[in-house]
């Protein structure tokens, strides 16, 4: 038990003094350092322009840093990353099953080989029975569920999410928050979650990294000590309110500290 807990908190990857300056001279990220530990639900919280999405893309390997080092714990490669975009980003010409199949298909898995994993995952995200549905026939929330299933179908160690629920209505967002927490506790992957919502970050994460803009940088880190599982009741608890107040304060400080 203790060894497992220890393993769960070992660093999975470290960003050391990561900087990113685009060709047009804009500095998106400056000397950002942070550690993602195994089993974390880590939120990157900040105003737009703070480089949180850039940080996520650098972790994913979609963008390379202009300064600093990205340290992966050994024995991890791209196969261990799942990515969820702000939009569901499903292929409109393919049905739900084929969309979720895609990452496995690209790795050479046939439809029959991949089917058990896909069906299991679709059940986990409450999309059983929608295998043959086309993306345009789904609601926004269901599209996002399909997108999450696709990201998890390769059983990644690290799930990167870039404001995945920002475009959804609040009721759908709450439900997806809970389902995501269930999945996370059940399958024990690590999450790095980009958001600009204080409430969402507090509800979901055990650690929040608050970022500041101009230039984008890590401002402060917060621990959210409330125990899991967190259910709907947590949203109305005084503890949650206090944590949100605290996080809001840090975010306000971060925005105040912006270089002008």
């Amino acid at each position, binding site marked *: 038990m203790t060894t497992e807990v220890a393993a769960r908190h070992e660093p999975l990857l470290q960003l050391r003094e990561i900087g990113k300056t685009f060709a047009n001279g804009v500095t998106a990220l400056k000397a950002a350092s942070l550690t993602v530990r195994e089993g974390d639900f880590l939120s990157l919280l900040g105003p737009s322009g703070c480089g949180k999405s850039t940080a996520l893309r650098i972790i994913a*390997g979609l963008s390379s840093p202009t300064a600093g080092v990205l340290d992966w714990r050994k024995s991890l490669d*791209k196969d261990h990353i799942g*990515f969820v975009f702000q939009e569901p980003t499903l292929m409109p010409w393919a049905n739900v099953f084929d969309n979720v199949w*895609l990452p496995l298909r*690209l*790795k050479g898995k046939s439809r029959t080989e991949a089917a058990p994993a896909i069906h299991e995952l679709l059940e986990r995200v409450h999309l059983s029975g929608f295998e043959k549905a086309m993306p*345009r026939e789904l609601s926004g929330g269901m599209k996002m569920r399909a997108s999450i299933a696709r990201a998890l179908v*390769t059983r990644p160690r690290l799930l990167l999410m870039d404001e995945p629920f920002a475009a959804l209505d609040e009721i759908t967002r709450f439900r997806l928050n809970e389902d995501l927490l269930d999945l996370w506790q059940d399958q024990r992957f690590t999450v790095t979650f980009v958001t600009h919502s204080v409430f969402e970050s507090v509800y979901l994460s055990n650690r929040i990294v608050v970022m500041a803009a101009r230039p984008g940088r890590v401002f402060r880190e917060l621990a959210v000590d409330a125990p899991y599982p967190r259910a709907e009741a947590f949203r109305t608890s005084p503890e949650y309110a206090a944590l949100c107040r605290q996080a809001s304060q840090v975010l306000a400080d971060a925005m105040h500290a912006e270089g002008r």
Partner: protein
Amino acid sequence: MRAEVQAAPFIDREEAQRARNAKLERIGRWVLPIAIMILAIWLWDRLCVWYEIPQYILPRPGVVASTLVSDAPLLFTSLLVTLKITLLSLLLAVVGGVGLAVLFTQSKWVEMSFFPFAIVLQVTPIVAIFPLINIYVDNQTAKLLICSWIVAFFPILSNTTLGLNSVDRNLIDLFRLNGASRWQQLRFLRLPAAMPYFLGGLKIAGGLSLIGAVVAEFVAGASGQSSGLASRIIEAGYRLNAPRLFAALILISAAGIVIFLVLTLVSHLILRRWHESALSAER
């Protein structure tokens, strides 16, 4: 057992009006063009009678129809020749257009280097190029094919190139994240994404390949037994055989309409499950 009582759904006056309008529109969509067509043919017939127009200038519709029947063996053999050129050149246009488009998207440099040539071919009137083709190519069928192909392939090339490049950036990132090869990216992402664009180009190319085939035949001035509808028209023109001229014209335009309808149907069948253009306005 209780009898099922079904209350008539309550419909207010505005909804009833809307339903009536929709029904009228559905009927009108078919009835109106047909009625106008019949009216126009009737007027054509009457004009011929009222003004006693001689048959070699404007034949009456009935005469054209009977010519269509009596000259059927000649006209339909010619139609087959023209259609063969049309469909072959359309096929070659698809292969050439899509092939070149795929080549272009594999490398920006290839596209930059060769796209201007495609444009030059497109903007130069085919009638002006034809004498050259006539010098270089001996085979009559090949001549017509090349001519018709040059006219038809450009819309497919330019549309497919546009489509292959109009892929959701996030989906490209997703493919990169999953280590997709170039071939996989083309096969699973770019080609399906380009499908609506390609089909749009195909619809234009279908009409153009027929025009190309007819124009080519006109310029080639081909005659003889195995010649197409264009040569029948030229012949009939020389002989002041206006009824046959009209009959041939009707066949050409009917062929064009059929090609268009078939391609529209194909496009609808392929896109109906996912693309906005094929969705009915049910909401």
